[in-house]
């Protein structure tokens, strides 16, 4: 990478910022308590099966894309069977603060087993997230030019970016501390594979009058760890960043050098015969990146008056001169430094109520905390159990500023095999490029010895949304059977 690329990086630092969007929310799955993998969004949930084995690499697969700014198909226009980049339609709709985030996870291994009083889970999950937050005005200024805003400062704060790839080993324990209550706790051991994020960004850009000198003030720090190569000159200035192609995929994927810890908590409370309340607090933790960890810092004030100063030309090309001048003045430097990268905690709280023998409804709220910003969402659902081996769900959610999210999900158990799929925005799966939110979660598992006809009580006294215990319904120490017998 030459200085032009580095200019891109510097501009990237300007345009980027940290507002982690690391949550992997799934309202649909939160309501589907009978799905074994729902334990991943509420560690208190215990399946009604003696044990569960997720199909390797397919036990739980999650993909999420969200863009508050624009629909992807607004980036281009079609003419003569060709799509041409034409982002005007997207840029014209930008608001002050926008965010784009991508999330995914794949449960490489998933296993759960009951003991008489507890339910234990073990999972090994690969997780990757990336996000970008930006100010609409900054993008407008870049795309349409600075002429209309000459003389006005443009703040850079609020524009950040980040990406994180890590591996998670989770050990969950769900138990009943008291009748009608089930508590779940899940410590998670993390290994960071790569990360890059803007930990600090302050500054502004301005085109001054009367003759349009460009001024920039910048105080930015970017932390990075992963297969990157940083090149410095004799003065310690960063001159080049590139992906290290010498690092093989196995050596990258098998790295366990950046440890971290996190904790998930959850509860389920059987409020009455028909109503269940559940909640969870997820991803409380950090990863400590030390392998190849670098701190990239740019700090300074830069002014570009033009390539000709007092009659002396410093280059024969205008654009190179602009890039060189800004880089020299902002002085990007790099030095090794380990860093802590927080996960983004999130919380669910919801309730379900069994309306008829086959239909239950529920509502839930979800909060996710980004540094400096709390992002709420809400969902309502109706769930239908037409037979003991199948569950269907429709849900509606208000999330990411959108009021038009209609989702769906299903769960099927056929013998020793079960599968589920759920989405919070069903139309997006059929119109990917015209959707701001695309979310899909699905999984396959082996659930031998789990016969709904034996262990799962399908009646109005046993809401389908509550976790099912291994204990037979008529066992003397089963709180539900006790409650029924009292009547």
């Amino acid at each position, binding site marked *: 990478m030459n200085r032009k690329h580095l200019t891109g990086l510097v501009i990237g630092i300007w345009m980027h910022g940290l507002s982690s969007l690391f949550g992997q929310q799934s309202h649909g799955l939160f309501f589907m308590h009978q799905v074994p993998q729902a334990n991943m969004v509420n560690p208190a949930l215990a399946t009604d099966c003696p044990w569960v084995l997720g199909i390797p690499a397919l036990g739980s697969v999650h993909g999420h894309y969200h863009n508050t700014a624009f629909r992807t198909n607004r980036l281009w226009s079609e003419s003569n069977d060709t799509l041409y*980049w034409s982002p005007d339609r997207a840029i014209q709709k930008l608001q002050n603060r926008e965010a784009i985030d991508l999330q995914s996870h794949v449960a490489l291994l998933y296993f759960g087993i009951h003991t008489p009083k507890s339910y234990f889970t073990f999972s090994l999950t690969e997780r990757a997230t990336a996000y970008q937050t930006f100010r609409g005005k900054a993008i407008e200024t870049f795309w349409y*030019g600075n*002429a209309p805003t000459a003389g006005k400062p443009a703040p850079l704060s609020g524009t950040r970016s980040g990406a994180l790839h890590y591996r998670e080993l989770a050990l969950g324990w769900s138990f009943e501390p008291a009748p009608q209550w089930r508590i779940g706790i899940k410590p998670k051991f993390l290994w960071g594979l790569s990360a890059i994020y803007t930990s600090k960004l302050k500054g502004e850009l301005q085109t001054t009058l009367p003759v349009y000198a460009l001024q920039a003030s910048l105080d930015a720090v970017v932390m990075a760890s992963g297969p990157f190569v940083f090149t410095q000159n004799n003065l310690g200035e960063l001159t080049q960043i590139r992906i290290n192609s010498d690092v093989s995929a196995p050596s990258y994927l098998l790295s366990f050098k950046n440890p971290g810890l996190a904790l998930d908590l959850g509860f389920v409370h059987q409020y009455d015969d028909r109503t269940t309340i559940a909640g969870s607090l997820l991803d409380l933790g950090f990863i400590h990146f030390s392998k190849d960890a670098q701190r990239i810092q740019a700090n300074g004030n830069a002014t570009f008056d033009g390539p000709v100063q007092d009659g002396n030309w410093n280059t024969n090309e205008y654009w190179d001169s602009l890039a060189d001048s800004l880089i020299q003045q902002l002085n990007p430097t790099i030095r090794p430094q380990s860093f802590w990268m927080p996960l983004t905690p999130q919380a669910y709280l919801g309730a379900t109520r069994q309306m008829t023998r086959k239909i239950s409804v529920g509502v839930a709220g979800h909060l996710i905390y980004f540094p400096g910003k709390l992002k709420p969402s809400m969902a309502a659902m109706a769930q239908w159990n037409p037979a003991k081996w199948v569950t269907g769900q429709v849900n509606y959610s208000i999330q990411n500023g959108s009021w038009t999210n209609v989702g769906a999900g299903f769960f099927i158990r056929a013998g020793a095999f079960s599968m589920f799929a759920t989405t919070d925005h069903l139309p997006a799966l059929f119109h990917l490029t015209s959707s701001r939110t695309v979310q899909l979660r699905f999984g396959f598992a082996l659930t031998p010895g789990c016969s709904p006809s034996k262990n799962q009580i399908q009646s109005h006294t046993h809401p389908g949304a509550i976790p099912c215990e291994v204990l037979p319904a008529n066992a003397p120490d089963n709180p539900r059977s006790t409650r029924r017998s009292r009547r």
Partner: protein
Amino acid sequence: MNQVVHPPARSFPFLRKKLLHVYISLLLALCAPACVREDFGQLSDKLTWSPYLTLPIGSTTMSINQTGTLPGTSLIDANQNLLLQYTDTLLLPDKPESAVAYTLSQAVARLYFSNDFPAELQVLLFFETAGQMVPLGATNLIAAGAISNESRPMQPGILLAEIPLPDALWDQSTQNPRLILHFSSGSIPLNEEFIRHLSEFKIHTKAGLRAKFQIEFGE
């Protein structure tokens, strides 16, 4: 004797293939409508960026050094008066390396002059590309600077000028575009005091460009 025939046991590879088949079928069922709807192979790599930019061109300073000579040309007329004749060149934005097409329209050069000398200045502008000079016109006269009783610069004459640049100047063939400024003054009496402080007199020029750019990328 009846013989019980057991069906062949289904091997793990069979199950694996079956599961993968189900998995891939599910994904295809979900993704196919979207994939059919948008064929990303149709997406062109062409991008046209049409910003309305203001950019600094540069600044120059003309001064007379201690030996009394100008970096440009100075003339002493028959009455021992100083006549400033000075030419300077400013670099204009050229075609970015990765661009395949590059044009400018509605371009305006914005010029800021500060004149210490006690004489009005006339500025003529030229556009130069590939060795060809295109006259662009003249600015208004830059006012003479005020001097103190000791013949030192006291209050410069200021002029802010905007000169439209013809659209035809920038096209595919434009190479290393430059703005040439030619200064000329009325006569300045060369008295002893003035000559003593001559090195303190300067003409500052700052220039910027405001234009609608159209830059095309991609083959």
